[in-house]
């Protein structure tokens, strides 16, 4: 599938409807069955796919609507991780979870999600996986000698899942590591765990690093300078970051350090419901092009659209697509 220059994509999650939030919470309260919830998820995912297609996104995801949050979907699937189902009051809460022994290997079952996505779209697809550093920050470690050792073993287990995804036809994989920004001191071993995770995975792999989007607000603040130069050791082809809400001040880091990556440039602020105009999006893309060659720019929102109302998320994605078209035209494409 040929992508245009400045292809558009999403970071992962799409708007979570209020009714789905209530039904997920009902499921946790054991008031609806798993079978019913699975059917509800299938329907919601199809709608999210359709919205991305209609908005004109080039590389789409399943909207991650099956996931309660970026951590628990993996907690529930990682063999050897203990969690308390009753620890959630609201579906979006984190499980209280811990690891008590060495993680056994085993499938996580993400290939089913991927196959469902592929079966329901002709577009280029991407699947998003929470990275070992972020998981190690949320799962209480009661076995490994260090967080680093735990993260490395998480990487080992999930690596097999990535290979299974590739076998199932996945060509684009995004690793989400927002906790890098909260714990910059971990970056050295965080990148090592990332590399362990993607070792031998024959796909186009990106890493998403933002400043958090829990409850639609930033969890940390600072400068992306902390990533450099260590991030250059990451064996990934793409890095995606937020530049809409925070401004483009850190874009010059890519020139300063001659970063070899394709850069997913966040041009949509997902922490406000104000919808950007295509002209504003175009301005943000042009700013990025001052520092990164056009062949290496992908256009994205800052982070997932989970916390935005559906109509706002759709309008923002549509504006993003239109803004990318404006710049392509200026570039003669």
């Amino acid at each position, binding site marked *: 599938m040929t992508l245009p220059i400045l292809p558009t994509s999403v970071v992962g999650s799409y708007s979570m409807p209020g009714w789905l939030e209530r039904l997920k919470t009902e499921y946790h309260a054991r008031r609806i069955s798993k079978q019913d919830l699975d059917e509800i998820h299938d329907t919601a995912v199809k709608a999210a796919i359709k919205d991305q297609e209609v908005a004109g996104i080039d590389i789409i995801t399943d909207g991650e609507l099956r996931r309660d949050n970026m951590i628990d979907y993996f907690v529930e699937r990682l063999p050897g991780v203990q969690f308390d189902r009753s620890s959630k009051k609201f579906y979006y809460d984190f499980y209280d979870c811990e690891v008590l022994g060495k993680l056994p290997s085993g499938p996580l079952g993400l290939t089913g999600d991927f196959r469902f996505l592929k079966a329901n779209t002709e577009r280029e697809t991407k699947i998003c996986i929470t990275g070992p550093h972020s998981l190690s920050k949320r799962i209480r470690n009661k076995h490994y000698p260090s967080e680093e050792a735990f993260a490395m073993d998480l990487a080992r287990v999930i690596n097999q899942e990535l290979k299974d995804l590739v076998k199932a036809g996945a060509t684009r994989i995004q690793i989400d590591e927002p906790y890098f920004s909260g714990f910059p001191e971990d970056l050295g071993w965080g990148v090592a765990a990332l590399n362990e995770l993607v070792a031998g995975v024959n796909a186009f792999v990106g890493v998403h690093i933002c400043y958090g989007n829990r*409850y639609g*607000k930033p969890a940390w603040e*600072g400068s992306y300078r902390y990533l450099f130069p260590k991030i250059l050791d990451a064996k990934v082809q793409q890095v995606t970051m937020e530049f809409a809400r925070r401004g483009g001040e850190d874009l010059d880091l890519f020139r300063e350090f001659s970063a070899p990556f394709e850069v997913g440039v966040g041009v949509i602020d997902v922490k406000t419901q104000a919808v950007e105009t295509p002209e504003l999006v175009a301005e943000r893309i042009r700013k990025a092009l001052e520092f990164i060659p056009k062949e290496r720019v992908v256009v994205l929102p800052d982070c997932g659209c989970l916390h935005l109302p559906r109509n706002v998320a759709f309008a923002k994605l549509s504006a993003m697509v239109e803004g990318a078209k404006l710049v392509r035209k200026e570039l003669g494409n």
Partner: protein
Amino acid sequence: MLLQINHLQKTPAANAAHDVIDALLSLLEAGQLEAGQLARLRVQLDWIQYRNNFRESVMAVPCGNSPEVSIAALDLHVNTRQFGKDSLQAEILDAISGCKENGTQHAARIPLEEFCSFHSSIAWEFNRLYWHRLADWERATGRGYEQALPGGKSDAHHPEAIADGVADFWTLLKDMEHHNQLPAEIFVLEIGVGLGKRAALWLDRFQELDQQRGTSYYPRLKFLLGDYSLATLERSRPALQKHAELCSFVVLDALNPIRSLSFLRHKLLHIHLTNVYDNLPDEELARRDGRLYLVQVRAYLPKAEAERICKNAEVSLGELHRNVNRLLEIGPDFFASRSQGVVFWQEVWKGLRLEERLVSLEELPAETLPEGLGLARMEEVLRNAPSDVRFHLSTGAIESLRNTLPLLRPRGYLQVQDIFVTDLNDYRTGFYGPGKVDGSIVNWVNGVLLREVAERAGYDLHFAPFHYRPGSHTSVLYTTQRE
């Protein structure tokens, strides 16, 4: 008939209960109350009031929209500290017969509005007028508003509380600096500034601590003082003269601070409010037999009171409504002399009462509940609450909270010093407003609902007792970032 007795110390509950039951049975035997009516009465003793309040000592509140008083359930609230034993029977009869034809006018009352949610009542227009024309009110009464507070002064200025608050904030800044997270500009906001005393004390203490510890945070401070009254902001200015270079005075609505400060989204490290939430428009819900009802109110003046006020103001009774509306639109200057206008204002306010009725939430638009707290959520919150309970919705406080939290920077926190109900069970055993404090309204704030709304916005709320003054009802709400 259901009888709910709130046990209060120093209240002769047994005698009061006996008197009320005796009065009701006498009315029944005299044929002035039907057996069916009695069966559907829900009598509450003691219907505790603020000393200055909006209610009669005996008040009947119809529940549901049935026009037939014999069918409608009635809540009968009796303030045992106020009723007269000799007049009790007449007061009960008057209260019940006043509900006979739902929505129509009680013969001895002059209504000033149609039934509406308390949130929309003109009572809040009086509250607004008070803050905008505070100087006129104070001139007439000869005392400042803080002297009108219970205890004669505000807990906002307690030096130890301020010193502890400053120390906590300094510790946060130090830790942020240690983690290389401290921004170049340190934004702090106080909403509801009063006379500026608290802000001045806070800044004095912060400057002192900063100098003692040699940290140079003070010059980086940007201290914003926000209030919806320009007059109040102006009055606060002199107190802050010493720190003038750091201070900005911003007219903002406490219900929606981010509307005025959107450029500071995710930028503020500390936001403080004292006794603001208890003065924001509010309304109440009641749960009866598993259903939720909104308490609607209608402001009125007792007819005798209205006649007296009109006579003093030299206006006809027919002109009363128009004069009240003009007062609320223009202020006391609407009258020939300002002092005459202030007298009219104070007399109407003093006499103002609210009659009530309960309207099923199912019959009202979904927007009746505040944003972020729909019916499904409300039912979830009430799952473990008492089955029969009447509680504040704290609409204004919830709106304010929702529109303040997005201003906080990561690791920033909100601190609210106010009067909170933190357990819905407490509504069964106490009364928490509304009351009148001078020309303004005071209402306790439903901390349970605030906590619920905050959680969905990514913050945990904590309530700590204000331990600096023994006997204080004040609590301190503070936020922590939710993981």
